[in-house]
């Protein structure tokens, strides 16, 4: 087909079926997630090498911190479950239920952030900060990046939820937000064992 034909008839005849059979918005979110996964991967690999090769390493987490991180993890995994409910309810057009699930997810995300900050302030009280050594530098960098993602996710859920509720966004937007939220949960599954569980006081 010549360029003239394309100009006259449009691209329709030339377009093949999408190899992924998903909307472009969802594919874009997947590509963002992959690039973000590589970013976190770089931080976690760097941490892993430093952690294993360092001659001495601070182990600041006592049982109270472990209990805190257990609650944080349960909260975050539960928020993924409520997000699944929100995406499903929005797909079948049950706006009220989707909003309930979205607000539950945002509340759980906010609770996670609050618990995370409590952990941080507890460490600050023991003079463990971003500038106090290798542990502080790596811990606050990695958990700070993750916390930034959680806070961004909570804001995104509230914004998308309110716009979906008013009818200006579609269930597809809720689904893309859900993908992002599950990714935040997934990253935490690597952060906890590497950054918290290898640094427990024995």
């Amino acid at each position, binding site marked *: 087909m010549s360029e003239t034909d394309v100009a006259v008839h449009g691209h329709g005849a030339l377009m093949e079926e999408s*190899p*992924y*059979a*998903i909307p472009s918005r969802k*594919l874009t979110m*997947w590509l963002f997630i*992959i690039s973000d*996964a*590589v970013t976190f*991967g*770089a931080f976690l*690999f*760097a941490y*892993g*090498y*430093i*952690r*294993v*090769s360092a001659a001495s*390493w601070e182990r600041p987490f006592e049982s109270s911190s*472990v209990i805190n991180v*257990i609650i944080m*993890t*349960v909260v975050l*995994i*539960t928020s*993924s*479950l409520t997000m*699944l*409910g929100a995406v*499903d*309810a929005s*797909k*079948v*057009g*049950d706006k009220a*239920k*989707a909003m309930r*699930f979205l607000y539950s997810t945002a509340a759980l995300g906010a609770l996670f952030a609050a618990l995370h900050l409590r952990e941080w302030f507890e460490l600050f009280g023991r003079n463990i900060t971003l500038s106090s050594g290798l542990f502080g530098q790596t811990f606050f960098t990695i958990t700070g990046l993750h916390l930034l993602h959680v806070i961004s996710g909570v804001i995104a859920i509230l914004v998308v939820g309110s716009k979906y509720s008013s009818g200006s966004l579609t269930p597809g937007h809720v689904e893309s937000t859900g*993908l992002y939220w*599950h*990714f935040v*949960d*997934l990253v935490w*599954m*690597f952060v*906890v*064992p*590497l950054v918290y*569980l*290898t640094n*427990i006081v*024995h």
Partner: protein
Amino acid sequence: MSAASSSGNVIKKYLPVYFVLLAIFFVEVFLSFQHFATGSLVIILLLLAVCSATLGLLYFMHLAEERRNLLLTLIPVTIFVLLMMNMFWSDSVRLLHMRPGAQ
């Protein structure tokens, strides 16, 4: 199927995955209190984290239900990039200890 029953079903459908993720996490917590060497503990915990992430990707992010092309495009490339990072991270550790490349 009504709208209300559908969103209830999806929670029930993924509840086993949720409990498996929690179980893997509690195994990780248990192992972290055992006296493993740091390197061994990191590897064991990483393997368990990969299991959790795989479950999250396949079921929570629905990659198992998408066309196989999507999985084959995204995941092998990501794993390849992450593995290639090890080339220069390991070199950075060598530089840290000021060891010549030949050793």
